[in-house]
């Protein structure tokens, strides 16, 4: 009469993708169960955390970040500091100011930054662009070449520029490529098929299926994560078995809960605490839904999520 839980791993499995080189290299994916369902089967690789360093980081204005990066003036200095943050498994460089509609920083300058970073850090590197399709394609190609052999992940190739990005990053320079779509499982699958069609190996592809801060349309992210994971595991859909990275910090630090001053919202209390909890909650929700890695910003939030993961796997 006593209860015997029915537990079983799925037949499908998430691809294991390795980033970086040497003893600091990390592997994401590899499991054949839903996130943290250790009672069904052991989790092959614990989810990982990336720490975000933007080339506009000098504009970050909460104390925890200004203190962490005090005295740093270059991206490399910030990256060296970021590498020491407890819980950060990899470094995520964001070249926001490359945007032609913004500062339009030249590609050569960004490449120089990336090279300088690669010289001072040993943890794996992920590169994000400025969300301008053509500029990103150009930028990724140049950095991929400059950081050859470092096994870097570039985020991301989109439906509009996957050919250029896939070719220059994955084919020519043997780096890893992120496939980015916005809360659309059909497009996510299609983009993976197209990248594989270019001869990019499945094990070189990571997905960014879209992100949003909790409270801001997160239901679309949640359901896309659920559906992608169920397709990959329960239906063994090889075109959706790529591990998932969620870019948490960019969304959570831009919403009102994290930006409104204490004068404007006296009831809400300390602004930095609000920003940390928005980041923590969105990261935890993504990891529970299916993200294999999250990109975060605040050291306290990162330490919290590190502990969260450690308790669960």
């Amino acid at each position, binding site marked *: 009469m006593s209860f015997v839980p029915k537990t079983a791993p799925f037949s499908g499995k998430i691809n294991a993708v390795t980033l970086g080189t040497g003893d600091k290299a990390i592997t994401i994916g590899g499991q054949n169960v839903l996130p943290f*369902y250790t009672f069904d089967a052991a989790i092959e690789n614990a989810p990982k955390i990336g720490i975000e360093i933007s080339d506009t980081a000098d504009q970050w204005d909460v104390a925890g970040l200004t203190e962490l990066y005090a005295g740093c003036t270059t991206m490399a200095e910030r990256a060296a500091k970021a590498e020491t943050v407890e819980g950060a498994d990899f470094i995520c460089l964001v070249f926001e100011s490359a945007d032609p509609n913004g500062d339009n920083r030249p590609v050569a300058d960004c490449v120089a930054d990336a090279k300088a970073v690669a010289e001072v850090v040993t943890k794996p590197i992920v590169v994000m662009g400025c969300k301008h399709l053509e500029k990103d394609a150009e930028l990724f190609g140049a950095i991929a070449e400059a950081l050859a052999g470092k096994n870097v992940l570039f985020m991301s190739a989109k439906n509009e520029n996957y050919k250029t990005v896939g070719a220059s990053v994955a084919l020519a320079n043997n780096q890893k490529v992120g496939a980015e779509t916005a809360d659309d499982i059909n497009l996510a699958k299609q983009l993976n098929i197209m990248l594989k069609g270019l001869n990019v190996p499945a094990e070189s592809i990571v997905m960014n299926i879209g992100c949003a801060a909790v*409270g801001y349309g997160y239901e679309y992210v949640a359901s896309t994560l*659920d559906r992608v994971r169920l397709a990959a595991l329960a239906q063994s859909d090889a075109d959706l078995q790529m591990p998932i990275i969620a870019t948490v910090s960019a969304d959570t630090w831009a919403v009102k*809960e994290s930006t409104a001053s204490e004068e404007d919202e006296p009831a809400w209390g300390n602004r930095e605490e609000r920003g940390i909890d928005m980041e*923590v909650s969105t990261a*935890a*929700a993504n990891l*529970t*839904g299916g993200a294999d890695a999250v990109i975060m910003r605040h050291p306290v939030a990162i330490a*919290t999520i590190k502990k969260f993961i450690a308790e669960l796997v």
Partner: protein
Amino acid sequence: MALKGLDIFKLSPKKNCKECGSPTCMAFCMKVAQGAVEIDKCPYFSDEAKAMLNEQTAPAMKTISVGEHKLGGETVLFRHEKTLVNKNLFAVSVCTCMDEATVDAKLADMAKVDYERIGERMYVEFVQVANTQNDPAVYANLVKKAAATGRSLILECWDVECAKAALAVCGKDVILDGATPENWEAMNAVATEAGVTLGVWAENISDLYDTVKKLEEKGNKNLVVDVTGKTAKETLANAVLVRRTAIKDGDRSFGYPSIVNLAKLAKGDAHLQTAYASMFTEKYASIIVMSGMSYAQALPLYGLRQNIYTDPQKPMKVEAKIYPLNGADENSPCCLTVDFALTYFLVSGELERSNQPVNLIITDASGMSVLTAWAAGKFSSTTVKKTFEELDIANKIKNRTLIIPGKVAVMKGEIQEKLPEWNVVVGPLEAVQLPKYMKDKEYEAAAKAAAAENAAKATTAVEVKELSFDELLATKVPAIEVKEWDAQYKGYNPESSTFVTIGERIHCIAPSIRKAMDERDPEPILQRAYEQIKAGATYLDVNIGPAEKDGPERMMWAVKLLQENFNNVPLALDTANMKAIEAGIKVYNRTNGKPIVNSADAGSRIGYIDLAAANDAICIALCSADGIAKDNEERMMHCDNMLERGLSLGMDATDLWFDPLFLVVKGMQDKQMEVLEAIKMFSEKGLKSTGGLSNNSNGAPKDVRPIMDSALVAMCMMQGLTSAIVNPNDRRLMETIKSCDIFKNHVLYSDSYLDL
């Protein structure tokens, strides 16, 4: 698994004898499924069927009510499968181990978090009172204090005497979280006597299951399970296994709501509690107990909860009202948009970024985005005027600049006419352009121009008398020029059972047709009619847009134009303006069949059935009310309601063509078979059906769409679909339909059947 009305219907005698008091067996079965009627009311159900139903009608997971709160009642494991029903609630924990000042501070802090977000009150619903001292007087004292907050209570208390003392000092909206494998019998007696919900906890999930079983055997099913384990890992395992066992394996002994106590798992680490609480919001806690709830925690957690528990088929709406931004007052300009939550967040975010004081006016548009709402007639000058009147905006705001979304620039004239004192300005196309637009005050020149125009109009304004249809026909409908066409409409016998295709290409969403309708230019409209007729369309749909202003003369013109040029081709009249449909029918020639009213639904457009009945027309009846029906039970309920209404107004059942609402594969792939099943149900009831079939392939590549549409139409015709609104110029689709009509023996085969 909860039994649906349709499952019961399958076992029913299907006699429609009305002896039970319901009009049909189907209606009776729906009521049984809802628990509104006992199955014994029907004298013809076999005992065997009844026994089977009694066992199966119990839902997989019970809904437990505690005061005004409902817990559990879930039917799926993932929100995309259907919808999650009862959101998780939060509790703050106080304990006899705390000193009085700590308890007071905690309860006071808890009360501070109380706000509204998208129409929902956000606050801590429960106080959890933990007993560690085992002194009845001490515990009762603390419970009394917690009860004074007015929140519902969770009494975590394993000592029988303490529990009794506590229950004596609080109300009935209480969960006594006190049963364990050791004390369950005594605790059960306490809870039952007090009439409160009993919580069950055990060291491990196996003992938990056994204890629940024992309580059930004693007749207590008013239970919740406390799944808190020694670690977060164990707790997640318990929460998932309990829910999965109930819903996937159908074992009702774990079909109870669950409590997760984070105060125990993340003592002292508020951020870690936020992380855990986020996880358990997604993974199956019904109540999450926290050691405290600050605003920093509440803002993300309640936001996440609101997202996870929204119905995936019903968009989130914000309240229609004035939202003053950046310190706006009555002298600040106004921006107008719809009530879709994502639109609101996007637009308000961009407006805030502009740092310019502005009043954001949200108008009721059934939670649709700007263009969707406009096309559905939910965002029109009439709905805007209604919002302005209901919110008394003209008296609340003195500034008269009203910026409307660039995407609905076409509405400018109509809104200006309905709101003559306002200076209506067309804003940017995209929200991201708003900060610059507002900062540079780009609207000022346009507002000035509008003001000047309004002033000029005011001096020349004359009373306009509403004209009758005949007067309109005589004065406002241009004469029809009839041309020679090399292909003509061949005629149609409404008695025939062949598939009816309704050509969809005369639609105002196409810019060329919109322009032609506005300018009464026959050419583009006749051209599309010609192409569709040549391709073999049975009916032509005529969509004249929302047509708020000149609907009747527009529709009369279009009907005459098409029928006089094409041998009285039968038409479906398609607009949100009911007067226009009425006018169109006035000039309609019935030689080749009745006009079709496109369309009624079971919600705000139910009146279209009355319109069709009064004018002896066919009516397309969309089986949804507001948003997509969540399952076939709901679809068939709408179907029955509309059928009853039509019949009571004297319509023939076959003049109502039921539309299951075709869903797009990209996004709702898992609902396609349900739609096909609905068609079969219409067919089994002897009803006709139709719908916008090609919606299934929306967003798919151009060369793939005809293949998908053809496959679907063949499957639909197998299920009994009698008509569809399609593009007749899709040759593959038309050939598939003709072939299916051969297999269905509707048309006698000949080698050249495709050419007929």
